């Protein structure tokens, strides 16, 4: 190819490239003009920078030249920035510069440039018309210390380049002009591209740090996307393929975040930052003019795993796995061997779960993974190899003692083994794996780094210290508002046009919206706002509230509660609000069919996903200011009493004879006694909360249930003001919900069934609470179908819970209590609501933990009444002190029915028979406490009385035989502590400290009563 032709081709090519670059460079030219302070001084006042930059870019003028042009133009007063003026100025300058450069370059060889040269060598002589060069891609102009507009060419394959003939100025200038424009522009373009990239990358890094702190900041996401998109486009223009691919992969992830398909996570930010670092290195390589040797496989995999894809980018398409003929047998062998390893791994891992410290097992498991890793690598099964490798890493850590294996970690390993099995099976079937193992690799990474568990890592919500109290107050107030909103929305269901309720609901949402905005909780504010819109439309008469819209609002309230919960826990919410937002929008626009379709889809997804408990124990409670005043007053009096004591001590030291110490002490003690009791009551009362706190949730629960079950159920509540210890209230909430749901599901019949029985179609569930002495009774009563004791017994026998013989003699009360036995469920079909047979026994256990007792009565077709008796408080209890041998124990007073004295002559009979006659009416079982507690010494003398303490729970009666009984004590319950909890001794509930400083154990009456059933069964 002749040089002339080549240059023409190259020039055209370069010009078109440069034109593209120029289009991007208006900003850069403008920046360059402004950055050059000398220029600014010279011509900033005279010339519109933006106009000049635009004109320069249109002429494909590099910024350096633009500066010179600007300077030239300002020296010519009155020059207008027309294209012609700019071109003329450029032309003049180019000629000047080329001329001076030519002189510089004499005797310096020219070379065509391939790639990104920083330097050039060329001679004027070597640049002739007889250029003959293959494969020249680009021409660059390089700048030397002065503005040089030159074509620099580098020879390829050692063929010398005919040089630039500076003599024919026109042609040279023309060529130089074109070449210069193109060449210098392109190199300048690359230089500009590199500079621009570096600037972008700094901005990008800062944006990613912001995104890490505020993953919901979509503005930030958009900025990140824009930057990556620009770099991607530019790198494509300049042919930097490696860079382009990496930026493209990164941009793909950001696009998905921007489109709401995935959420920002810690792992994602890590991947992005790694990507930014790698992009920086690639850009540095471009700047230095060297080929990048970076291996991007690991980073690509990382980005793919964040995207949730398999290795190699997007989901692999299903297809045939091609295996060469001579490899078939080897691959088959690999499959067989791997399957054997996997089978053994299953067994070994189960064993390892039981004995995680068994190093032989750990080594064996490691070897299996290690072998499979090597084999899969050798055969080129990359996905399989990666998965096995990641799993092996975990076992290696355990083998090297850097990590302890536990069930959670082994769970991840088990799942990985399952996936490995599937991949091996794919190989066996000769099909390409379409398994998504991105999330598995992420879980393996989490397990390796000690972040096991199903829960995604929670990111902390940062709140300034001075705002903490305000935020806490906001949370408490909002929770109260939401509880009221629940009730109001249920009322609106009955009367959707009630303006008072609508007004109240609107005001509540409005307040919530304002408060969350003020505190910067954007996501919360947005959700509340969307919900408020629906209520506003109803308030303004633009729409009528329908059950569907009430449903959506109630669901929104649920999500608002969860968001508040996250704020309370100080974690950034990871809730997906896109679904509810879409529903709110459809409800607002009254698109009922679309809403219904969306709801059905969402319900399916909710049914498939496991229910996640998101209970956060409350660490704050509201206390009536009057109670606090009482506390302060009582404390004040105690201080006065202390001063009296002090005075007395001083008088004693002075030896004042007129003081009767005994009398004075008695008086002070009496006063102190009263004050301490008052103080104790006052402090206890601050923890007392009305049970209405729990009851307030039930209208909503019953309403939702009734709709789900197509029943009509009215909920009646009374006694909400009954107070209970806050701890008990929090613990009773779950069991109570379960019992109420049970009443609705299994108790109350459908309207048709009820009408057939002559009952009103609408069933009633009544929830009551009242105080009885030191106890609170909670009653759940329904007028449903009741329970048939015979049916219950039959079911229990069929499930092997009781024998037929036991069923024959079992009284009605005991039969009804069978529903609390583990594994018992009479539901003919398990509904989503209840009936899985795991609920009631857990309810019973939870209530027992609170020292509560359940009483049940039921009549077929009339209804069921369930009573729960709970102590007012768990901190203090009254107990009867009993003596067994040398030891003393306390038995909680509430479990004691009576104390019976055993005359000496009856003692041995009673011990032998293990029964006693209660009130000369019933024979009841007896437990010898000495044997149960393993008391070794027998302090009882022959001829002394013994005592039976009769314990009662519901209808059950039993006795415990003790050597002696002493007085009742009101004692403070002390937990036995974390260490002892490991052994969970069933005989004791806790301990207390007596007046003499000794520790006395409090017996567990439920356990003792349970012993008699075992005793019976053994007989």
């Amino acid at each position, binding site marked *: 190819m002749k040089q002339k032709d080549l240059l023409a081709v190259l020039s055209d090519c370069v010009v078109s490239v440069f034109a593209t670059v120029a289009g991007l460079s208006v900003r850069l030219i403008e920046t360059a003009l402004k950055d050059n302070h000398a220029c600014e001084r010279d011509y900033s006042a005279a010339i519109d920078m933006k106009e000049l930059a635009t004109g320069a870019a249109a002429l494909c003028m590099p910024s350096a030249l633009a500066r010179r042009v600007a300077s030239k133009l300002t020296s010519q007063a009155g020059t207008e920035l027309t294209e012609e003026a700019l071109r003329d100025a450029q032309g003049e300058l180019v000629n000047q510069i080329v001329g001076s450069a030519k002189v510089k370059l004499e005797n310096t060889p020219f070379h065509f440039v391939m790639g990104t040269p920083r330097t050039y060598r060329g001679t004027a002589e070597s640049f002739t018309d007889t250029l003959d060069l293959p494969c020249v891609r680009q021409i660059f102009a390089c700048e030397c210390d002065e503005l040089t507009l030159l074509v620099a060419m580098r020879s390829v394959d050692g063929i010398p380049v005919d040089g630039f003939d500076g003599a024919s100025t026109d042609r040279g200038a023309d060529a130089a002009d074109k070449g210069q424009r193109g060449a210098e522009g392109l190199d300048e373009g690359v230089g500009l591209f590199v500079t621009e990239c570096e600037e972008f990358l700094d901005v990008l890094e800062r944006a990613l740090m912001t995104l890490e702190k505020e993953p919901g900041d979509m503005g930030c996401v958009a900025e990140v996307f824009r930057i990556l998109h620009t770099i991607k486009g530019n790198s494509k223009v300049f042919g930097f393929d490696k860079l382009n691919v990496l930026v493209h992969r990164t941009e793909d992830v950001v696009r998905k975040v921007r489109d709401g398909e995935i959420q920002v996570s810690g792992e994602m930010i890590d991947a992005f930052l790694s990507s930014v670092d790698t992009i920086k290195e690639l850009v540095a390589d471009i700047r230095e003019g060297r080929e990048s040797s970076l291996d991007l496989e690991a980073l690509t995999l990382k980005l793919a795993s964040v995207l949730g894809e398999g290795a190699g980018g997007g989901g692999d398409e299903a297809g045939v796995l091609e295996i060469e003929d001579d490899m078939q047998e080897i691959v088959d062998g690999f499959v067989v061997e791997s399957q054997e390893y996997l089978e053994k791994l299953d067994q070994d891992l189960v064993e390892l779960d039981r004995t995680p410290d068994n190093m032989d097992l750990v080594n064996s498991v490691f070897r299996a993974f290690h072998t499979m890793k090597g084999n899969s690598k050798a055969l080129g099964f990359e996905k399989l190899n990666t998965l096995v490798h990641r799993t092996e890493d975990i076992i290696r850590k355990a083998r090297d003692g850097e990590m302890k294996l536990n069930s959670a970690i082994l769970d991840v390993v088990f799942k990985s083994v399952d996936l490995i099995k599937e991949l091996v099976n794919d190989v066996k079937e000769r099909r390409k794996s379409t398994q998504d193992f991105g999330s598995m690799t992420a879980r393996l990474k989490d397990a390796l780094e000690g972040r096991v568990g199903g829960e995604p890592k929670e990111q902390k919500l940062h709140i300034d210290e001075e705002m903490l109290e305000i935020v806490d107050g906001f949370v408490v107030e909002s929770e109260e508002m939401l509880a009221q909103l629940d009730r109001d929305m249920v009322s609106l269901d009955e009367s959707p046009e009630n303006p008072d309720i609508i007004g109240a609901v609107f005001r509540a949402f409005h307040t919530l919206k304002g408060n969350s905005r003020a505190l910067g909780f954007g996501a919360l504010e947005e959700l509340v706002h969307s919900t408020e819109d629906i209520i506003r439309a109803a308030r303004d008469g633009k729409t009528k509230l329908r059950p569907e819209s009430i449903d959506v609002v109630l669901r929104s309230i649920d999500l608002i509660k969860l968001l508040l919960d996250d704020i309370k826990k100080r974690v950034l919410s990871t809730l997906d609000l896109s679904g509810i937002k879409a529903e709110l929008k459809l409800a607002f626009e009254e698109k009922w069919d679309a809403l219904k379709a969306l709801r059905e889809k969402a319900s399916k997804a909710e049914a498939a996903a496991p229910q996640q408990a998101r209970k956060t124990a409350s660490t704050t409670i509201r206390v009536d200011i009057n109670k606090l005043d009482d506390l302060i007053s009582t404390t004040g009096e105690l201080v006065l009493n202390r001063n009296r004591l002090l005075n007395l001590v001083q008088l004693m030291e002075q030896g004042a004879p007129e003081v009767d110490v005994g009398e004075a002490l008695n008086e002070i003690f009496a006063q102190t006694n009263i004050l301490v009791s008052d103080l104790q009551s006052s402090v206890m009362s601050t923890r007392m909360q009305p049970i209405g706190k729990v009851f307030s949730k039930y209208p909503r629960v019953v309403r939702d249930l009734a709709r789900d079950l197509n029943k009509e159920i009215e909920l009646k509540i009374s006694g909400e003001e009954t107070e209970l210890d806050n701890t008990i209230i929090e613990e009773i909430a779950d069991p109570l919900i379960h019992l109420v749901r049970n009443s609705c599901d299994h108790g109350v019949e459908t309207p048709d069934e009820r009408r057939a029985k002559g009952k009103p179609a609408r069933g009633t569930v009544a929830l009551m609470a009242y105080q009885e002495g030191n106890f609170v009774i909670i009653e759940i009563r329904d007028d449903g179908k009741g329970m048939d004791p015979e049916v219950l017994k039959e079911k229990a026998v069929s499930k092997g819970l009781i024998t037929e013989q036991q069923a024959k003699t079992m009284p009605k009360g005991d039969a009804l209590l069978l529903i609390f036995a583990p594994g018992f469920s009479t539901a003919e079909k398990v509904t989503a609501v209840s009936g899985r047979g795991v609920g009631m026994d857990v309810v019973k256990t939870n209530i027992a933990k609170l020292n509560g007792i359940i009483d049940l009565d039921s009549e077929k077709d009339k209804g069921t009444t369930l009573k729960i008796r709970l102590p007012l408080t768990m901190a203090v209890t009254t107990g009867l002190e009993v003596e067994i041998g040398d*030891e003393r124990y306390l038995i909680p007073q509430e479990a004691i029915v009576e104390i019976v004295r055993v005359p000496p002559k009856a003692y041995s009979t009673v011990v032998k028979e293990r029964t006693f006659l209660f009130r000369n009416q019933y024979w009841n079982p007896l437990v010898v406490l000495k044997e*149960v*507690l*393993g008391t070794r010494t027998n302090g009882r003398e022959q001829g002394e009385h013994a005592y039976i303490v009769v314990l009662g729970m519901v209808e059950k009666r039993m006795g415990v035989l003790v050597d002696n009984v002493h007085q009742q004590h009101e004692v403070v319950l*002390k*937990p*036995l*502590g*974390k*260490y*002892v909890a*490991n*052994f969970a*001794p*069933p*005989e*004791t509930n806790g*301990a207390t*400290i007596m007046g003499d*400083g*000794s*520790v*006395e*154990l409090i017996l567990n009456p439920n356990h003792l009563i349970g012993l008699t059933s075992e005793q019976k069964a053994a007989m």
Partner: protein
Amino acid sequence: MAGRADKEYLGSSVGKVGIAIDVESVQEVFEARLITRLPGCPAFVSGMINIRGSVIPVLDLLKVFDPAAAVKRVAILKTSEGLVGLLIGVLDDLLRFDSLEQGGAVPDVLKGVGHVLGPKGVAGGREYYLVDVERMIASTLPHKAQ
């Protein structure tokens, strides 16, 4: 193995042999008069004591419990399972070791805790075996039982 001259240990005699506990693991040494037996727990759990209103379990891992003794010496240890008391024998002075050496046969009196003993050092002419408190407590827990 060089001992750390700045590290102090609580020394106690078990028969003719001594044990040393890193003093940073020890909250206090308490002289208990009453230990309330706790039914339903393994034999090495002697019982519970009251320390300023808290109920603390007491373990007899060194087999020094003497029911007849009027005062039982309990080292209250700070562990990951909360405060746990360890019955100890005669209390020695606070010890420092210039050097520690590994291995050697575990004396019979310490066989019960042999698996949690560390290196031994000599102070005041007597050998003391260092006790790893966390390991000792962990080894008594149910799921760790062999």
